[in-house]
């Protein structure tokens, strides 16, 4: 998808110095010239998983599905999630 898209916006659990990635260039999956922007989004995949940092949060997925039924409950869910993440 990163190859087919006209613009790529990356979200990342962690950002690292360029030199650290350059030590093993073969591990870089999406090179810089294909990327329009990077968003530092720790825990950005929740309630789904991001190996190896965290697994799926099944109760969280159910809570999301319940909230996603209506715009008002979805809004409240997103606001609560956002606040929880900000407070760490």
């Amino acid at each position: 998808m990163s190859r087919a898209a006209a613009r790529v916006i990356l979200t990342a659990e962690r950002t690292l110095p360029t030199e650290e990635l350059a030590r093993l260039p073969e591990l870089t999956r999406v090179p810089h010239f294909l990327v329009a922007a990077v968003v530092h989004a720790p825990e950005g995949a929740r309630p789904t998983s991001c190996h190896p940092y965290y697994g799926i949060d099944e109760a969280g997925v159910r809570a999301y599905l319940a909230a996603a039924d209506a715009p008002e409950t979805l809004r409240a869910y997103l606001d609560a999630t956002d606040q929880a993440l900000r407070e760490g």
Partner: protein
Amino acid sequence: MEYGPAEIMAVAMARLLRDGEVVFNGVGSILPMLAIEVARRLYAPNLVYLNIGGGIDARPETLPSSSTDPSLLAGTAGIVDQPEFYQLVMRGGVDVMFMGAVQIDPAGRTNSSAIGDIGRPTVRLPGGGGAAVILPTARRVILWRTRHDRRAFVEKLDFVTAAGNVDRVVTPLCVLRRHGAPAGAPEKMAGRLAVESLHPGVTAEAVTANTGFPLPIPPDCPVTPPPTAEELAVIRQFDPKNYRLLDFQ
């Protein structure tokens, strides 16, 4: 400052690169590697450099003698392997490709396959590599040839290896441009090569005598600006072993 064909060719190629472009060079490409380095040090700092080994933005300390040198992979910003590269060029992601050729015709088509009949060649050449895919898909192709003579510039190719988006041809004598019909020229000249600039000290007669087809040369043909002191300094610093001269021996 003194300079020769290698230096004027390197700077002529370097000046064709624009900042931010994605530029690729293939195997056996010492002069393009030198041109890319001159460009990014002096006027295209954000150029994205891909080479045949796959390294992105390789930064060797000095020019390697081979375009597959390990220094073109170590510490790079990623690896674009061969399938990945062809996907990239086919979807329009490569701005400039440097490509060599053994024969070049008036339309900028190339032969790097065989001399003589392809079924029974008198000389079997290295082959097209990816040329047949890259020439029509890279946005601009810069051909280069370290010899400008009637064996290289022929009216009819012995075999058409590749044809496509050839924009310029850089030789030891001049820079050729392939474009729409030159001003005042008949429509049939569209897509044909014409001289854009003669290198310093090169006459129109010399180019005509060494080209195997009629090549338009404007009467007030510009002269390729000689390498600047800055350009020559980069060349000498980056290529202390003079590998750039290998292709001229």
